[in-house]
Each structure stands twice: as C-alpha cells, then as structure tokens.
C-alpha cells in the first residue's frame, strides 16, 4: 500500500495592510509579489536577495551624512564685501530671531529631527535584524521608523537649496559649499534605503527575535 499523500497545507490568511481584506497567502518565487484582490495594493513581496545588509549599509551612511550635512556650510553668500556661510541651523535661528518660531520649529523638525529619528530607528531595527540580536524596544523603533517616513524631507530640502541659490544670486554672490553635496547624497541614501527596506523580511526576523 502506498503511503498516504501529505495533506495539503491549510491556507494561511493575512490581512491587507491597506484595506484589511483577508488575502490568501502563498509561497512566492524570488521577486514575486502578492497583491490584494480588493484594493490592488502590494501585500507582500519576496525580495530577490533575501538580505537586509544593503539597506543597513545605506542607513549607516545616511546617519554619518546627517552629521556632516549639519556641521558643514551648505552655501556662502557675499554681498558688498560681507561674507556669510550658512548651515541648515542658521536659517532656523534666523526664523527664531525674527519671531517666526512656529516656522522655525517646522523646519527644524522636518529638516533635522525627523530625518535623524527616521534613519536612527531604521538603523536600530536593521542592525538587530542583520546581527540577529534581540535588543530592547525593537517594536517601538520599527513603529517610529514607519511614522517618521513621511517626515524625512531631506530630498525636499535639497531642491529648496537649489532654488535658494538661484534667488540669492539676484541679491549678491552666492557659491555652493560642500554641505550641499552632503545634503544631496543624504537624500539619495535615504531614498535608496527606503527602497531596499524589505518590510516582509524585517517582520519575519523581528518575529523570530521576539
């Protein structure tokens, strides 16, 4: 008598992150994706590399670049012999001094604090996943990284710098400084890191660590 064929695995159901419709989970080939039938959103994606290392590397670079971008001037401005070099914080202080502190706080949060929190928490989660360390507060850090994603506005800041140089060119002599380069590289780093951040793999690793 032939051995009984193994019973088919019961279907696993996961809820769509967007519309909460139940979706039937299945084994995915590398690079395959599971989409919600109701709203069409990507529910789960099997990455081709199955590795979080690239994202971790980019996030580490991003953290270093945040420091560099904030301590080196982004541009110098010269009018009638008066020269001034501007950091990101110079503008924030300028707004404070003129009494526009709500705007100053908004710039400080979206330009410095938000990106630092986003990259910092992402780094913590990725480091724990890559080194397989069950560090405290991983869930909270992961949650924070998700919340801060829309507050990482460094790419927008990079565009604003270009416009500012054009505007200041009408007033006096303006020249780029190395800080602007750090801002541009930082925005590329965080964009690619977000792209490479494999949500599904992170969830799996975090569950295994907990």
């Amino acid at each position, binding site marked *: 008598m032939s051995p009984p064929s193994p019973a088919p695995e019961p279907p696993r159901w996961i809820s769509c992150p*967007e*519309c*909460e*419709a139940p979706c039937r989970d299945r084994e995915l080939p590398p690079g395959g994706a599971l989409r919600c039938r*109701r*709203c*069409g*959103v990507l529910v789960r994606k099997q990455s081709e590399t199955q590795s979080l290392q690239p994202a971790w590397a980019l996030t580490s670079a991003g953290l270093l670049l945040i420091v560099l971008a904030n301590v080196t001037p*982004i*541009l110098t*401005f010269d*009018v*009638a012999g*008066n020269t*001034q070099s*501007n950091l990101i914080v*110079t*503008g*924030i*202080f*300028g*707004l404070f*001094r*003129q009494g*526009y502190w*709500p*705007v*100053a706080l*908004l*710039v400080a949060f*979206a*330009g410095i604090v938000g990106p630092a929190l986003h990259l910092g928490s992402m780094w913590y989660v990725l480091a724990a996943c890559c080194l397989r360390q069950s560090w405290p507060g991983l869930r909270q850090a992961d949650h924070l990284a998700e919340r801060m994603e*829309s507050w990482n*506005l460094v790419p*927008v*800041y990079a*565009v*604003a*710098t*270009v*416009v*500012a140089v*054009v*505007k*200041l060119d*009408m*007033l*006096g002599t303006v020249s780029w400084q190395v800080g602007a380069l750090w801002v541009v590289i930082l925005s590329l780093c965080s964009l690619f890191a977000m792209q490479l951040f494999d949500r599904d793999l992170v969830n799996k690793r975090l569950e295994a660590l907990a």
Partner: protein
Amino acid sequence: MTSDARRLQTARALVVTGLILYVPANVLPVMTMTVVGDVEPLTVLGGVQELYDSGLWPIAAIVFLASIVVPFVKLACLSWLLMLQGSTVLQRRRGALLRVVHQVGSWSMVDVFLLSILVAVGQLGAMASVRAEPGALFFAAVLVSTLFASESYKPRLIWQTGDPSSA
C-alpha cells in the same frame, strides 16, 4: 465614539482649517527681500513670478507646482474623498488617489525650507536683507494641517461603508 469616527472627524476639521488658511497664505506676503534699498514684499506667487522673470522657468515651474498647485490639489482631493466617505463608488481609485496625495503633499515644504535658507542672510547689513512675513505662518499652518489630515484619513477608512459612528 470609535477611534475611526474620531479619525474622520479630525481629518474633516483639518481639511476645513486648511481651506480657510489657504487664502491668507496666498494673499499675504511670505517674505520681504531688500536689495540695495529696494524693498520688495513677496507673496508665494510673487516669488514664482520673480523666478520666471529672471528666465529660470524650470525652477519657477517647480516652485509653482510645489507651493501653489500641490497644496490646493491636496485640499481639493481630500475634500472630495471625505465627501464620498462611506459610499462604494470608485473605492479602488480613491485608495490610489489618497496614496498619491499623501506622497506628493510633503513637496510643498520646498517653500518653507527656501524661506529658512533665505532668512539666514537676513542679518547681512543694509545692502541686502530678507525678512519673514506673516504669510509664512499661514503657509506653514496649511502644510501642517494637510499633513496631519492625510495622516489621520487612513486608506482603510475608504473601505468601511456605512456610518462609522454607529459601528
């Protein structure tokens, strides 16, 4: 009241706030640029005009899109989506629209960042100075209210039909 009903109420209140503040944000000057005694108060649109006049139309186009078109389109889309809340028409499209609105919305921060970089030169003596003006406060307030509105109106609410307060 359920937390979903509260989310909806918050989103509605913030969109109305944003629509009201959009008017002073665009009518009042956001900054004054003084060049060799020539005092120029600039509204958001005035800043775009100035860039366009200097022949840099691609940059003028970016600023125009980011600081005038995007906030308005975002407010209009959110109002439309909130009005259709609970109905079953075009649910898939509405979900997609909400995601796009959420992604694109933060680009209007260009103008606020720009202001902060320009204001940094505000203390360079009498020859050239840049000062922030009250319009900047309203502009920032529009941004913050639309940001939080799209944050609290989650796409999953589109898929909840019927009255959420009775649920």
